[in-house]
């Protein structure tokens, strides 16, 4: 029998980029909480994620979900030197802004604002897009994220020179590359398997 997509109704779709808390509604049937086995729970990594329809949908391929989540956590939460957390979140927010993922941008703009305390700059990125004027260091991180996200990719040695001139060492530049690249993964799942709601 052919499976069917889900059609959410009666929800309020956000029509602007925002730092507000949003929810997410799936277009494909997630596993139910009662179907989750130990292998699924290992894929979820955090038991609390069993409440999330997004993670219960991805749990249909539990090994891959677990690998995705562990990749994500190391790129963003590993505190061993490199790029400060606020700027890893900036790269995630800029990538999400360019790809058009309103849900992902909301989460990572909140984190960028919380860790940097630069709420106005984060809001300018959301309102104006990736061409917004922030400061040179943030502009360099946003420009590198844009160059990696574009197809064909336009990232080249001029981006690396600009990041170095703004004070980033090579581990920090690798963190920009990993954070922007990871959000090209995350944005596509969030955008194509469901939709945000207020």
């Amino acid at each position, binding site marked *: 029998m052919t499976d069917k997509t889900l059609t959410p109704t009666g929800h309020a779709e956000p029509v602007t980029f925002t730092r507000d808390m949003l929810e997410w509604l799936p277009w494909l049937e997630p596993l139910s909480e009662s179907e989750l086995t130990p292998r699924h729970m290992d894929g979820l990594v955090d038991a609390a994620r069993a409440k999330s329809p997004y993670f219960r949908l991805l749990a249909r391929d539990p090994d891959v979900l677990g690998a995705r989540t562990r990749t994500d956590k190391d790129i963003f939460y590993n505190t061993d030197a490199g790029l400060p957390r606020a700027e890893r979140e900036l790269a995630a927010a800029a990538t999400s802004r360019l790809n058009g993922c309103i849900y992902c941008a909301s989460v990572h703009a909140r984190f960028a604002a919380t860790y940097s305390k630069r709420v106005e700059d984060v809001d300018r990125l959301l309102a104006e897009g990736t061409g917004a004027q922030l400061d040179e260091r943030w502009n360099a991180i946003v420009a590198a994220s844009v160059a990696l996200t574009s197809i064909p990719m336009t990232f080249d040695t001029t981006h690396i020179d600009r990041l170095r001139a703004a004070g980033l060492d090579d581990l920090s530049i690798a963190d920009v590359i990993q954070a922007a690249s990871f959000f090209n993964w995350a944005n596509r799942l969030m955008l194509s*398997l469901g939709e945000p709601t207020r």
Partner: protein
Amino acid sequence: MPQTPHDVIDTLVGIMPGTALDAIRARRPEARKHAQASYVGLLVPNEPGGVSLPERFAIAAFVAGLHGEPQTSAFYVEGLRSSGAADALSAAIAQQVDKARAVGPYGRYPKGPLSAEDQDGPLHRVADDERAALGAKLAAALEHVHMLVLHPRDAAPPSLQAMLDAGWSTTDVVMISQLVSFLSFQIRIVAGLRTLASHPA
């Protein structure tokens, strides 16, 4: 069966043990390990379920081709060949890449203030005379995958339903979505780190 390098990203970037980039990747050891685990889980899983290895490598060769990144493209074209795919399938994927390349990301926003930023671009359709070599399931998948790569904000349920109607299950669609999304990550890491490795401080 395609050969599985010990670390696909290191192999495609050309990172040798003891180099500066090797040391940088070692500082994010979980990301390194689980990027490789994601590759194994998505391209050469022990239990492929409803998406066969040739189908996985066909989609990967298409995605890498759309990005135009030479190392990953060559790697997945070779992977498709050694996955046991018919020559006709490899040729059909190369033809789809040639027809489907575009500049992205583009797409539309929900109606409202962001509509001013809407950017139209091509919607990929597999022509009737190209379907035989791909099969109906892969043809439906490539149409969806093209959107996911180049204009992901245009995603909507009808494109998922077209894949379900072509014979994929809900779990298969999740696997294919993860595959394309993971490749979007891997291809960029490879391009970014190759550039960094080529340009020491």
